[in-house]
């Protein structure tokens, strides 16, 4: 059994309280931005605030009835992040005379509705396990879609498709379907992967045929990198598979194999693709005038982002007082630089703490749930959020090369919002099953997972006894 005690309390009232705080943060941020306008309290402000609060309320009520024991902190955190993101996008709209915030708000509504729908359609997350192989096919289709005539190439990356009323990035959804496939595949086959295979020195090497998921992961991420020129997503996919395989097997050998594959893939990518080597070059030599001023692969964007962060300093310029609009893609890839400029280091610390809490609640869910599939899925999805934050924020601060990724829940981008809100729904579903008190009396339906799990931990224990 899980070694984490579950709390047999609903905690929905705490969620309601936290939601009020989160909505307060989101709406007042929007109001402060609006104060720069002649008419800050216009109808658009009231509509947006009303719809956001209404959707949050509906979400909360759905949880009350459908997932009473779901984690109470996840939804308020996400509402706060989404709201701050909306306010910043609106603020950059005001500077650039654009209307991105409107569509972002629309996408927020769609994403929240989709998230609610997931909660309503799926009684619990274990149903998703039935879609293990369908998810694999769906992932392949989603990832290949941009390469079909439907696909669009924007700024050299072919990761979008045209869906009539706008563009959509299917890779974002593939993140979820791939997580489902891996959770399903690994929870079913982990015994085989664990026990079969040769032992070389301290490392228990897997059998070649059990390497399949690893190879798929590697192929997918390299394929994305080659055909779609999307460095960020390929790092993200690879990280997702790595963490899920590691969690499934608890074997360090898999990490080692994975790292070797990353090194091989990365080295090949630098050699083969000019855009990858340019990225690396503009990361290391960002302040070289030649690199700064060149046409392709210039460090202009990252350096401008750094200037913005520096301008914000410790306390920030205050919302509406800085010049985040000087940075290219200030409302999407570079939204962290915009937030850092106007809210300062202190504001970003707050935002990052929200992400840390969110990821921690997801991990807590993984620890608390009783089935291997749920553990893998919750852990994989939570870790993906952390990794995505690391890749984008590390890129903006020049800790690692800058890759085009969205900041979850904050950056402008409908597909990213939709995918992340669906992840929220899945995490809430898993947390519901993790926190729901054990059913007394006859179980309504039995799950082999629980059995799986018990043998799983026994296996681990026996391994520990006789290595």
């Amino acid at each position, binding site marked *: 059994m*899980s*070694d*984490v005690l579950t709390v047999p309390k609903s905690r929905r009232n705490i969620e309601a309280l936290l939601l009020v705080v989160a909505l307060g943060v989101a709406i007042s941020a929007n109001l402060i931005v609006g104060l720069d306008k002649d008419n800050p309290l216009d109808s658009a402000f009231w509509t947006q605030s009303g719809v956001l609060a209404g959707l949050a309320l509906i979400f909360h009520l759905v949880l009350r009835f459908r997932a009473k024991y779901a984690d109470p902190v996840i939804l308020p955190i996400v509402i706060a992040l989404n709201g701050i993101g909306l306010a910043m996008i609106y603020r950059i709209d005001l*500077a650039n005379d654009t209307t991105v915030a409107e569509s972002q708000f629309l996408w927020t509504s769609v994403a929240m509705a989709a998230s609610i729908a997931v909660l309503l359609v799926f009684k619990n997350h274990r149903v998703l396990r039935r879609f293990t192989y369908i998810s694999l096919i769906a992932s392949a289709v989603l990832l290949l879609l941009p390469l079909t005539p439907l696909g669009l190439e924007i700024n050299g990356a072919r990761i979008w498709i045209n869906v009539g009323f706008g563009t959509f990035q299917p890779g974002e959804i593939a993140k979820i379907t791939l997580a489902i496939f891996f959770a399903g595949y690994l929870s079913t086959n982990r015994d085989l992967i664990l026990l079969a295979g040769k032992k070389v020195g301290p490392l228990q090497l897997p059998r070649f045929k059990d390497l399949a998921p690893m190879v798929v992961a590697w192929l997918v991420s390299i394929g994305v990198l080659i055909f779609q020129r999307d460095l960020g997503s390929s790092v993200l996919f690879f990280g997702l598979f790595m*963490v899920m395989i*590691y*969690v*499934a*097997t*608890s074997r360090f050998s898999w990490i080692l194999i994975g790292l070797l594959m990353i090194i091989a893939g990365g080295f090949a990518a630098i050699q083969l693709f000019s855009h990858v080597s340019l990225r690396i070059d503009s990361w290391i030599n960002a*302040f070289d005038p030649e690199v*700064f001023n060149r046409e392709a692969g210039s460090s202009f964007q990252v*350096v401008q982002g*750094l*200037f*913005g*962060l*520096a*301008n*914000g*300093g*410790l306390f920030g*310029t205050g919302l509406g007082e*800085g*010049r985040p609009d*000087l940075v290219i893609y200030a409302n999407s890839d570079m939204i962290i630089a915009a937030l*850092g400029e106007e809210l*300062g*280091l202190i504001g*970003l*610390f707050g935002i*990052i703490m929200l*992400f*840390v809490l969110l*990821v*921690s609640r997801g*991990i807590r869910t*993984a*620890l608390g749930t009783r089935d*291997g599939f749920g*553990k893998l899925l919750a*852990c994989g999805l*939570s*870790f993906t959020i*952390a*990794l995505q*934050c*690391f890749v984008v*924020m*590390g890129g903006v*601060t*020049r*800790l690692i090369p800058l890759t085009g990724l969205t900041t979850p829940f904050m950056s402008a981008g409908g597909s990213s919002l939709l995918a992340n809100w669906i992840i929220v729904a899945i995490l809430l579903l898993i947390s519901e099953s993790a926190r729901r008190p054990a059913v007394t009396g006859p179980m309504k339906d039995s799950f082999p997972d629980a059995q799986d*799990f018990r043998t*799983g*931990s026994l296996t*681990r224990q026996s391994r520990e006894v006789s290595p």
Partner: protein
Amino acid sequence: MNQAIRSAWLVALAMFTLVLGSLTFVQFFEAEALSDNDWNNRSLLQDFGKNRGSILVDGRAIAESVPSNDEFNYQRVYNEPNLYAHLTGFYSLANGATHLESVMADELSGTSDELFYDRIVQLFSGAQVQGASVELTIDPEIQQLAWDLIPDGQQGSIVVMEPATGNILAMVSKPSYDPNLLAGHDTSIVLQNLEELSSVPGLSPYFNPATESLVAPGSVFKLVVAAAALESGDFDDESVIPNPAVLDLPGTDVGLPNFVNGGCASQTTANLEFALEQSCNTPFAQIAWDLGAEAVLEQAQDFGFGETFGIPVRVEASQFPEAPSEPELAQSAIGQFDVRVTPLQMAMVNAAIANDGVLMKPNLIKALRAPDLERISAPEPEVMSESMSVDTSNQLTDWMVNVVNNGTARAAAIPGVEVAGKTGTAEVSGQGDNAWFTGFAPADNPEVVVSIVMQNVDIATGGQLTSPSGKQLIEAVLNK
């Protein structure tokens, strides 16, 4: 499995910690270096969006920020642009800022330490940060008069100053320009305007002629040599110096002549009073030989030569050649050869003589005012150097009064007021002469110093544009 999940969580925490560390590095430790980076135009752009303080003259704004309907929110506007252009300078997006707009940038934009308290108040009251206003010592009537006294098309500068405080009452130069042409937000138009302005002879928007142009002083420099002579103790009012019409310059085949049509020819010897009165060249050349170049240079430095400083606009260092040969020293003694002064420098020489030998640092700033017009600070008069003894200054004053009463500066005389003055004409090879008048009044209790230079003129025109103008300016100040 749970152990692995915990490890994954630790990895996630480690990644967030790395990001927090990296952010702290960028936003805290590196923030200043990044903000100072040459590629970072943020502070300039941000200042443009600020309500910058005004530059005030007698309560009226000669430069102010008015709301504009573009992305910068404010437009810098110069009222009476040509009259004050060389003082205010300009504040542009593409070409930076000059003169007061540049040297007082911290105060005008509100980032100066003196405004810290106001910034805190504005932070908490939510009011937009507003810069301080800078009030100048300029008297608008004197400034206007000085402007009118330089004919359009004539290149020249006038400085009017209070000797006891160093406060500048007027500082004008022509040709001038309209800084509004360079303060626009459309960079391409500004660049075109800048190019056109730069093609005007004698004009640069980056350069204030009254404090930065180095011109040959001619005979007004004799005041410095006379001061050096008295300070040396080797000369006094009874010293008699040979006054040949032409002085042979050793090692050359040219001589140094007195002015052919002047009064010098009436005497073959001269005391210092007469030599100054008629501005005789040959006695001063011999005095300089007696004193040595070192002594003249030291006296010049006591008047501020060789020093670049700010009033707060930049003042170029006036020059006296180091280690000149004998013929060069003779030429230098009468303000020729490589002697170069700013118009302000000659005002400073006169101010030191007028103020009992004490040179006060010239100053343009009367007060710094907070956005609510409350006076934040006002600079105190500052002693720049002790240029000479009181006796020397009194003696020089007497001789300069004599120059106005009986000598070359008679056109500066004012009935009922003792005016001290000295004229000068410097020959500049390749163009017309520089005509000078410098002086102060009243001689017994000086209230005003003027320094006038008209460049590239013939002697007759130069005479009309200098001493009579000095008289008008002195009268205007004394009648206040």
